[in-house]
């Protein structure tokens, strides 16, 4: 295989559609999702619950639930089509090429094994030739890097002896130990309280300097993503509605959904009795997706053209794409 040109993104998701078989029928959870993560960049994916952002991440990891109905499109990591890999080859990609940090640190670590055992085991795939002693030493150093005090002692502890924030640091350390090209962080701060969330975000910012891979950072909060990410992808009900550099997206949002999302967050937490803003209406039914703009039902600017076919994600300015006929 020839090396892809340097300009090629590390991760390239093209036209990814994915559905699950459920008791109610087939849910079209992702529809024609296209996004790219350049090398060394942090890309944020933002959307509300049910927008398909976690499913997209699981698809990249090929860790999808067994009721998967159909997948089309392609997911290419550094020139390798992940969807075409045999299971064992995909397993070997995990950890050393692409690793993932999960939402809930309280359940992400195995409760009956020492942190040390788990941190050594995750490295075996990436570094099969290194001795246990070497892997142990790396694990202790990485715990120090992510801010666990007295790591040489704490590494002998079990997960339940750490707080939620500390556990998330441990999971992040495990991911970094594998030196993956792509690190996926699936809402790594959502399950934590606000002060711990700020600490973990600061940790990601600090890690940027020492980590030369790319990061796919999933969040339901534009605010979280804004400070951390170079580029932002906004997802809604299983599609990408807008993608741009973080600065462009915040200063000049083009999709009505992004604008509403920004307004919701600006209203957040000023504590002066103003009611929290929300977008009227609910997330659409993914069992019966209309051949129209998926946001039209909730969009304050919707008109006839929005109901005539699904709007394509098109470039509205250099590096700025939106899926809206008005953009």
């Amino acid at each position, binding site marked *: 295989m020839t090396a892809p040109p340097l300009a090629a993104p590390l991760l390239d998701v093209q036209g990814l559609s994915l559905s699950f078989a459920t008791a109610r029928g087939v849910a079209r959870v992702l529809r024609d999702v296209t996004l790219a993560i350049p090398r060394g960049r942090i890309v944020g994916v933002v959307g509300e619950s049910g927008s398909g952002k976690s499913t997209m991440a699981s698809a990249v990891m090929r860790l999808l639930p067994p009721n998967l109905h159909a997948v089309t499109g392609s997911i290419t990591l550094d020139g390798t089509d992940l969807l075409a890999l045999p299971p064992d080859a995909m397993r070997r990609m995990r950890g050393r090429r692409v690793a993932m940090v999960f939402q809930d640190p309280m359940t992400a670590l195995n409760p009956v094994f020492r942190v040390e055992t788990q941190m050594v085991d995750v490295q075996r*795939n990436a570094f099969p030739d290194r001795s246990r002693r070497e892997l142990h030493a790396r694990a202790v150093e990485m715990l120090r890097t992510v801010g666990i005090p007295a790591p040489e002692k704490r590494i002998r502890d*079990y997960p339940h002896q750490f707080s939620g924030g500390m556990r998330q640091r441990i999971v992040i350390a*495990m991911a970094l130990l594998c030196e993956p090209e792509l690190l996926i962080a699936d809402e790594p701060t959502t399950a934590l309280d606000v002060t711990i969330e700020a600490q973990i975000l600061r940790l990601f910012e600090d890690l940027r300097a020492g980590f030369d891979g790319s990061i796919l950072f999933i969040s339901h909060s534009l605010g979280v993503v804004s400070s951390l990410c170079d580029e932002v992808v906004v997802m809604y009900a299983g599609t990408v509605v807008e993608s741009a550099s973080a600065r462009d997206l915040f200063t000049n949002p083009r999709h009505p959904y992004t604008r509403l999302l920004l307004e919701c967050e600006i209203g957040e937490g000023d504590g002066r009795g103003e009611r929290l803003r929300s977008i009227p209406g609910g997330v659409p039914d993914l069992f019966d997706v209309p051949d129209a703009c998926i946001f039209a039902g909730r969009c304050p600017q919707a008109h006839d053209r929005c109901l005539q076919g699904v709007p394509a994600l098109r470039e509205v300015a250099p590096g700025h794409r939106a899926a809206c006929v008005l953009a």
Partner: protein
Amino acid sequence: MHPTLRYLSGRLLTTALVVVGAVTLLFALTLLVPGNPASVLLGPRATPEAVAALAERMGLDRPLHERLLMFFGQVATGNLGTDVISGRPILTMVMEVLPFTVTLTIAAIGLAVLVGVPLGCYAATNPGSRGDRVAAVLSVSFIAMPNFVVAIFLLLIFSIWLDWLPVLGAGEPGDVLDQLVRLILPSVSLALGWVGYIARLMRSSLLEVLGEPYIRTARAFGIPDRKIVYKYALKNAAIPTVAILGLGVGRLLGGAIFAEIIFARPGIGTLVYDAILTRNYPVVQAGVLVVVLLFVLTNLLVDLSYAWLDPRLRPQKGVA
């Protein structure tokens, strides 16, 4: 006090209380049987003098609380008295046959674990497959068959029709191979139901654990499936099985009576059975007492093994 030490002493105290309760109940056994144990033992044609003499030797003429204390004293010192029929110390009689029962029970449990756990693991890692369904049918049939029925059928098939295995007895003393061969049918007949039990339990708890987020984490780091199942999931899934095994030892000790009678093996089961037939209550008491002690001891070990399997159950000094 160190938390581990405090945990251990607390656990030992409850164990001791259970033993005291069991010993009291055993004592009550002699009060509950109709009639005077001495006359029951000597039969209807015994003279009143003989009955009175035996009653005195058994201490039946003393007040109740004194007899209870005496019984506790006997249990505590291990001096369980002399068998009135054979004139031998009861403790010696029990200790002679105890190894046979313990060997049989360990063999049965070992067999149940060695077959049941892999069967359950296979079923859990291939849910819905043909093998899983076959394992399910087999397991349920094994559970449904009473072990004395299994014992009789095994005896018929393998000893009488096929003539592959010896019929009766525990084997010649000193001939280990012979003893092992004669252990096969009794232990299989005891283990079969437990194979089914453990396989079903293992399957369901392993399936549950395999759906846990930390297993997903392990997959996300490329840890091989075999290692995920047999290292990361199995230790979590083993906890319910170990709990059941603790109870299982008690059931197996009870079930051993059938196997010992059917296969004419010496053991606590046959000893107690024969003693019941001759209304030899002191021997019954001693036999049951040993079974109770073994059961309590196993459950203590099971409780301690929880802490080994699950560090969250270990006594904590504090959480950082």
